[in-house]
């Protein structure tokens, strides 16, 4: 976005004290072999206590990088965070924290994360119990023995069968679903304030997916944790999200409560995402919708609307100016020129019809 629009409006978003995480103007750059990728572009959002925020988008849209920026676990050496970016956790900017403090006072203790693939994200040469107990040893004064006992009750909490046996096993000896439960037990060991779940069910089979989502939701309610759930699956978003935030090409393009997004979405990309979710209702012979084209290469991010080349409702202005985020309601906003009062109704433009 243009430089003059960068100062974040403090009046509107900092009023409520139950905001636990406040991300402002987050920019993430990745310096790769082929060039400098602007992976996250001027992303701002807040997370309230106890709520679930779902970040949805195609792969490569910057959603995982946003999550990892919050954890301060961006790929070392090649990543860079923009100078104006701020990530305020309970009012403190974690980007300015010394590394030592991030280790002892942030990661694992207040913010923890579960990852996509529980197979590769668990240490193969440590037992399940050791790995869970490690979090406890790091952030509490527990002794090894106490920590192992606590690990056992955590395993019970995540409903692993036969926990006394599992605690001594290695990750390879468990099934995918159980490994993800272990991961959850590990992440929740220190009762963090924020849990970031990066595609936690993508690597699991469908039946286990529902169980894991159910477990996350249950534990979240019990502990009052705020959750940021990163996914490409709008179906999951529909199930668990309080608020949904849609990302495209490194930017947030629409954000709102669950019902606003599902009932009153204004951005054509959000429509496209919803149309491509198979649902029980759409039992027509109609083919499942699939979005044509690919997202832009963020080595040279488009100056105008990033979605324009793929958009069925593309107008002249979309190719000329970057859209401006505008509020539909207090909680619902989107960045699309269709919201401009002078813009025609989508029906008048659409080549593929409306939703």
């Amino acid at each position, binding site marked *: 976005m243009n430089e003059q629009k960068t100062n974040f409006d403090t009046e509107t978003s900092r009023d409520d004290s139950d905001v636990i995480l406040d991300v402002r103007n987050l920019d993430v750059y990745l310096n790769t072999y082929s060039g400098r990728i602007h992976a996250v572009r001027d992303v701002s959002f807040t997370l309230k206590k106890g709520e679930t925020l779902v970040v949805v988008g195609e792969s490569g849209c910057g959603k995982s990088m946003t999550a990892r920026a919050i954890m301060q676990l961006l790929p070392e050496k090649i990543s860079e965070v923009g100078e104006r970016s701020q990530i305020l956790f309970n009012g403190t900017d974690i980007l300015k924290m010394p590394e030592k403090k991030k280790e002892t006072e942030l990661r694992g203790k207040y913010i923890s994360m579960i990852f996509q693939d529980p197979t590769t994200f668990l240490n193969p040469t440590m037992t399940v119990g050791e790995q869970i107990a490690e979090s406890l040893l790091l952030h509490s004064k527990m002794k090894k023995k106490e920590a192992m006992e606590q690990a056992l009750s955590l395993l019970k909490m995540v409903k692993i069968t036969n926990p006394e046996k599992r605690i001594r096993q290695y990750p390879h000896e468990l099934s995918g679903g159980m490994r993800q439960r272990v991961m959850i037990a590990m992440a929740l060991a220190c009762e963090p304030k924020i849990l970031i779940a990066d595609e936690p069910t993508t690597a699991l089979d469908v039946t286990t997916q529902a169980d894991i989502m159910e477990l996350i939701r249950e534990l979240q309610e019990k502990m009052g944790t705020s959750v940021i759930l990163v996914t490409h699956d709008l179906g999951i978003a529909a199930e668990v999200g309080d608020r949904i935030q849609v990302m495209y090409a490194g930017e947030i393009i629409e954000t709102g409560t669950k019902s606003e997004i599902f009932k009153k979405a204004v951005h054509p990309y959000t429509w496209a995402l919803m149309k491509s979710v198979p649902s029980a209702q759409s039992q027509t012979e109609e083919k499942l919708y699939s979005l044509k084209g690919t997202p832009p290469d963020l080595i040279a991010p488009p100056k105008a609307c990033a979605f324009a080349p793929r958009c069925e409702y593309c107008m002249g202005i979309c190719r000329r100016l970057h859209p401006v985020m505008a509020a539909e309601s207090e909680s619902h906003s989107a960045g699309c020129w269709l919201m401009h009062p*002078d813009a025609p109704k989508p029906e008048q433009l659409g080549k593929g019809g409306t939703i």
Partner: protein
Amino acid sequence: MEIKTIEELACIPVENDDFAAASDQDEGDVILRPSLNYWQDAWRRLRKNPVAILAIVMLAALAVMCVVGPGMTGYDYDAVSLSEKNALPSSDHWFGTDKMGRDLFTRVWIGGRISMILGIAGAAIDMLIGVVYGGVAAYFGGKTDAIMMRIVEILASIPYLLLVVLVSLIVGKGVGSLLIAMCLTGWCHMARLVRGQVLQLKDQEYLLAAKALGTPWYKVIFRHLIPNTLGVVIVAVTFDVPSFIFGEAFLSYIGLGVQAPMTSWGSLASNAQQTMAFYPYQLFFPAFFIALTMLSFQLLGDGLRDALDPKLRQ
């Protein structure tokens, strides 16, 4: 990121056709990254690696010297001159002479020829046998593969140098027999490598497609499998060459190397070893060139591996 109201949105100045449907000019998929095929990309990467380029230059220089070096001095490699025994390096004899007064400069490059030829020919033989054997085993799979790989496993568990010693006792001394001895089990690791690579490729769709189209097996192997395994094979060959040069040197040390008056870097070094305390330069030159060659191949191999490793492609 700033959120405006709809009213504020309305205040943004617009142009005439801003709200007309955009024409279908497809600026859609602009490809920003240059598309390079595997070899172009590998070459680009290799070129960027100064160490590998230096290794190539050194190897080229060594190869040129092995070709022209022996003719540069006007001495024959086996011309004995008893009046000039053990002469120090001088303007007459650039690298000095050995205990029989033979010009070391000439001998070093003649020896270099033998060492280089042995190294390259040996690696080539290893590669041929290994690629064919590994490729066939992996391609046919099942019982064929099981039996063929059992054989390799057993052969590979025999200590290499011992086998070479035994075999060279039988086949005698000379470049050809040295090659046979050293290639006897040398190809095993190459076969394993190729097999692993082919097995990985085998289940990929384009091969399935080729098979479905009725492409005969030999064409599948030569058109699809071998080109795609070439990367790992090239790297392995690069590391293989020095092991032959070293193997020959080792055999020379225990008296099974190339026979006099013919020579190699290994036998030059081995001969000089005994009198090292008095004439260290006699050892220095062959040892230096062995080390330089091994170093160059090693660095080139490292560079090639980095350049050809598909995991590093982004």
